[in-house]
């Protein structure tokens, strides 16, 4: 089973978590000023990264908190996790394996 590092609780089994999609998307402050294309871009368009991806997770069956994590989408390896509000950490270099 995949172990996911919760920034509050430490490494915990994958089945305690729910996935929250791409991280660091900011909701437009006044959506009514956007045209349909810009609004659709915010709602639906994602980076679909192959490689290191910043994404939200929620430790739903643990501490209940949302947090962000860096995961390599090609290996499923978690490189870092960090609390909501903290900046995205620098991507660790080198082969972590």
């Amino acid at each position, binding site marked *: 089973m995949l172990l996911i590092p919760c920034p*509050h*609780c*430490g490494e*915990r*089994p994958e089945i*305690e978590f729910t996935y929250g999609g791409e991280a660091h998307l900011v909701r437009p402050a006044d959506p009514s000023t956007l045209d349909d294309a810009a609004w659709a871009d915010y709602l639906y368009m994602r980076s679909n990264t192959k490689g290191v991806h910043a994404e939200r997770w929620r430790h739903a*069956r643990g*501490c*209940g*908190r949302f947090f962000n994590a860096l995961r390599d989408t090609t290996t499923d390896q978690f490189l870092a996790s960090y609390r909501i509000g903290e900046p995205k950490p620098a991507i660790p270099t080198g082969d972590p394996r």
Partner: protein
Amino acid sequence: MRETAVRNVPDLPASDWMRPLPPATRVAFQGGPAARAAAAQAFPLPDAQAVCRARRDGDRAGLWLGPDECLLIAPATTAAGALLGALRSAIGATAHSLVDVSHRQVGIEVRGPHAERLLNGACPLDLSLDRFPVDMCTRTVFAKAEIVLWRTDEQQFRVEVWRSFAPYTAALLQEIARDYVG
């Protein structure tokens, strides 16, 4: 309605390694560090930094569930209304949430030399004593049921499970136990 729900406690099996625990008064607390510190004057609560730890004082205990969330457990002789009142006056105007969840869940005690393995039959956490010491507690899963697991002694755990999942949890524990206790 409330009285019906309160009386309708599931009839759970008891044996030398598992027993349903008596009714308890339970309160769900949510609040930031200031609210938690104030509430700790009225009830034993772990610090926000005491991750996954329970703080006990006699027969009352506060369980760390999250950085801003605790589960408070007291004997049923403690009236929920009185406990909520004491907590509210201790916390004052600081933002917080207190909810009486006494009848939402039931306690099941699992004990004995096989306790770790019985729980690990459906809980994925490492429950060895060095990784899950006495008074460690956490919300987690027991197969399809969400539970709060609290190690109350080296060979004793308290499982808090929502009432409607309690028969499922107890039955699955019994099923797992066939491999260990016959």
